[in-house]
């Protein structure tokens, strides 16, 4: 059963991925049976995904991430919150992020 993602959740990068910031892009390679499969599965984030990703340090809750981003971008915390939670849910579903217990 997947853990619920809320503003109190702390997300960490999954051990089943290798992620690198290369030439301004976040490139995520999932590990399939211990192999980085860049042929069938390779992910990149758009600018919003990248902005959220860069704030995830394994310590901040998603609520704190929303606050930090709200300070940085001229959108309401409600607007940014929708994206941060949406992003986290999608990444957890794809196995790219894990919920810190």
């Amino acid at each position, binding site marked *: 059963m997947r853990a619920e993602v809320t503003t109190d959740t702390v997300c960490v990068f999954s051990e089943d991925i*290798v992620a*690198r910031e*290369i*030439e301004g892009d976040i*490139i*995520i*390679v999932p*590990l*399939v049976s*211990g*192999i*980085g*499969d*860049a*042929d*069938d*599965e*390779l*992910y*990149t*984030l*758009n*600018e*919003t*995904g*990248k*902005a*959220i990703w860069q704030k995830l340090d394994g310590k901040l809750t998603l609520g704190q991430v929303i606050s930090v981003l709200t300070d*940085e*971008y*001229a*959108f309401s915390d409600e*607007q*940014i919150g*929708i*994206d941060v*939670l*949406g*992003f986290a849910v*999608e*990444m957890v579903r*794809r196995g*790219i992020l894990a919920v810190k217990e």
Partner: protein
Amino acid sequence: MLLRNKRSGFDRIEGWGSMHKDDTKEYKSPLGCTSTTGSSEYISYGGELHLSNSAQLELLLGLLKRGVPLRTTVRGCSMFPFIRDFDILIIAPLNEAEPCLGGIVAFIRNNTGKLAIHRIIAKKEVGWLMRGDNCPEADGVVVLGQIIGHVTRIERRGRVINFGFKPGIGSYLIAWLSARNLLLPIMTLALKLLKIMRLDGRK
């Protein structure tokens, strides 16, 4: 040979992530942050991603440093016919093993610092001599630190190719011929003979 990376086909959606507070007078957010459902795309996948040679190198180094092999499609014909355009390779870390003669390795070129995937055709005093099977000249001698991984599997149209890269007499022979400038003429002749035989077979 160079790596080819796949990724998504759909257009990147630029959201507020590209718009800092100072920039917002000039832009409007087109992203799902204004959506009532919160469902928006943050990630791209599938399709094709064009990475520069240095970006491919960095990605490969990132994986191999973690001890993780990379499975990826390669482009080019410098290793034809043993590796062909759009073949899928698995490149694994050497894990302190010494590169073997005849093996196909990913390495950093001497003069350009770029990534290449070619064969070791000779052991030299200071390193290994590299050459693409279909290249008119050798790349030069590279030292161990320049070799970042070796090819452990080749897939072509869903089939696994077992000849020409695993340690053994076959790859050793290819390296031996290549080091003596005999591989290209022999391959050319063999391919011509094969073509003739196929044509004869159809008659």
